[in-house]
């Protein structure tokens, strides 16, 4: 702990990440490791290994009151009255039974608050500025949008958190990504983060905690900020954060699990101290002009394979590094693309609007505005991030807009982002998706994924092709 203090003093001010880290040190171990306290542990229906490991070792959950669970990976997004797949039914029932036995709050499949774990944490006010938050899912970085230190963990680490409410960790390096400029119409936060990943690479953030800063970030809503932090892991960073500000506090006020009255005032005073100090030092700084961005599309099988919609598929022969060249060749082969081919105009087979990246109310509004008065040319599904978002969208009539345009309006869950519930893209099919991973086989064996924003996915749905959404907005 002393070495950290010396370093901090030597470096001047503290970053947001360092402030949260320092406030959660329980003990130090050999080699500069820190035992960090965990304020919030989120749990989903893929957690059955963790409960099994606890049982096998005869351990109890230390702080069930700090754990929150909901099924998302396996839940059906169609009819839920009679779940035919016995494995899916089993996973949902096991989570309910495990959480009941441990005394853990569970937003079950019949609860309107059920949804994708990274959507409902902020929505319920479970995620707060300054907290440490973990979950056995790599997109836990999402919660950093509220100024939390949030990161994904494996099953062994989750078992450790259950048993001790702590984790051994080593302080990450810090990287600030300064995003200036004003987004052009039709360009959104998804395009910002795809551009960041294309710039720094899928391993560019490895070993770093990212902080997104700058005027373009300050101008974003909480929904849009969550999209950015969500994909930090696709840049290799476990953790991505945005300093809390009035946008954050306005969002949290009145949320069910957020503090109230005098506790709110006290929390707010603390939260206002969290942003990185003006003289804080970062290990790396990266700049990006959001005003120069076009809508982004990925052409390959890594999130770093992103480019503006008006560009051409790259030529692997131009890549000097042999392993990277090989990866691009394999990616183009898998995606059925040729070097030099135009990305815009590629014919698609289906569209997915949803996932912890882009299933919030603002995402649905943006997509609905594009499809309104048009007809879907290919199968397209819209999967809201939570039951409450679904309800709010229906209150605004968004569901009618989607349905009248021929898009499917479904129940909340992870769905076709990862396909564990059976919502899959067929082999060889090309899908424009608002999710976060275009990995081989991610949306189904042989499925070809193009990552896009909700606006671009909506444009793809009504044209059946990868289309520059700005051309539809102009009409």
């Amino acid at each position: 702990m002393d070495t950290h203090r010396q370093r901090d003093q030597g470096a001047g001010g503290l970053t947001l990440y360092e402030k949260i880290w320092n406030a959660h040190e329980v003990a130090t171990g050999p080699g500069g490791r820190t035992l960090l306290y965990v304020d919030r542990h989120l749990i989903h229906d893929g957690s059955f290994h963790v409960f099994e490991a606890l049982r096998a070792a005869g351990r109890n959950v230390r702080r069930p009151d700090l754990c929150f669970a909901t099924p998302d990976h396996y839940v059906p997004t169609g009819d839920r009255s009679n779940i035919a797949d016995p494995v899916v039914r089993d996973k949902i029932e096991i989570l309910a039974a495990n959480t009941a036995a441990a005394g853990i709050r569970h937003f079950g499949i019949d609860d309107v608050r059920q949804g994708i774990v990274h959507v409902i944490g902020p929505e319920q006010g479970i995620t707060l500025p300054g907290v440490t938050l973990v979950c056995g899912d790599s997109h836990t970085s999402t919660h950093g949008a509220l100024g939390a230190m949030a990161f994904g963990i494996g099953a062994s680490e989750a078992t450790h958190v259950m048993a001790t409410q702590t984790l051994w960790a080593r302080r990450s390096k810090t990287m600030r990504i300064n995003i200036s400029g004003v987004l052009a119409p039709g360009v959104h936060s998804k395009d910002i983060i795809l551009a960041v990943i294309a710039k720094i690479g899928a391993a560019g953030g490895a070993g770093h905690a990212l902080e997104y800063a700058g005027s373009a970030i300050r101008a974003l809503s909480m929904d849009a900020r969550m999209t950015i932090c969500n994909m930090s892991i696709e840049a290799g960073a476990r953790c991505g954060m945005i300093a809390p500000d009035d946008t954050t506090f306005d969002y949290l006020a009145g949320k069910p699990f957020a503090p109230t009255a005098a506790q709110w005032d006290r929390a707010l005073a603390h939260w206002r101290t969290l942003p990185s100090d003006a003289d804080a030092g970062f290990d790396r700084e990266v700049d990006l002009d959001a005003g120069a961005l076009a809508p982004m599309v990925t052409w390959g099988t890594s999130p770093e394979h992103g480019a503006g919609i008006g560009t051409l598929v790259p030529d692997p022969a131009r890549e000097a590094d042999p392993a990277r060249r090989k990866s691009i060749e394999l990616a183009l082969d898998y995606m059925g693309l040729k070097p030099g081919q135009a990305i815009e105009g590629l014919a698609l087979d289906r569209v997915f609007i949803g996932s912890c990246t882009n299933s919030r109310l603002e995402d649905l509004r943006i997509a609905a505005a594009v499809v309104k008065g048009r007809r879907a040319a290919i199968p397209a599904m819209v999967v809201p991030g939570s039951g409450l978002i679904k309800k709010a969208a229906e209150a605004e009539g968004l569901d009618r807009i989607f349905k009248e345009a021929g898009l499917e309006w479904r129940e909340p869950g992870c769905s076709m982002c990862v396909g564990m519930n059976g919502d899959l893209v067929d082999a060889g099919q090309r899908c424009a998706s608002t999710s976060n991973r275009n990995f081989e086989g991610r949306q189904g064996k042989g499925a070809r994924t193009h990552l896009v924003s909700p606006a671009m996915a909506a444009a793809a749905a009504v044209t059946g092709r990868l289309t520059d959404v700005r051309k539809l907005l102009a009409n």
Partner: protein
Amino acid sequence: MEPFTTLTSIAAPLPLANLDTDRLIPARFLRQPRSAGYHNYLFHDLREQGDFILDRPAYKGARIIVGAENFGCGSSREGAVWALTGAGYRAWIAPSFGDIFFENSFKNGALPIILPKQRVAALRTLLGDQAGAQLSIDLAAQTVTLPDGSIERFEVDPFRKECLLNGWDEIDLTLQHTQAITDFEARQRVNSPWLVSSA
């Protein structure tokens, strides 16, 4: 956890940058219990395409993989590590790893080794040219010995090293800090009472 001390084995080159955990084990197999043997699904879809490098006879019995940049990126699924260890692999060498996969490896008695990019590329070439060649890893000495006797040194976190060398369960170690955890919780109740969820 099975201790990791030294390992001498055939090493297989895997020249794929950004090898994600969906390729290590596709998500559709994760619905099975671990007892189903996740190693049966290791690299499932890559293998189906035929002539997968790890399936070549020369690399049969390999327990070491020499990969490329950002090995094990993507999801937090520990099943990716269970699939590798279940298939007999115990060490993977690359210029960089997915952070969560890296951590998950240590938790399962496996050793991820970071070496400079050029050295990893040279190792892959060597293992391709001399298919079936062995590497020797000595965790205590932090060395990888090549077939010609030359040595690569690697860095490893001292805490993770101790845990691996001794096969320690981290939870048991942490429980020795129970009083410090309890004290922390008492301080937090006073200083940040809003964190104790109420709804």
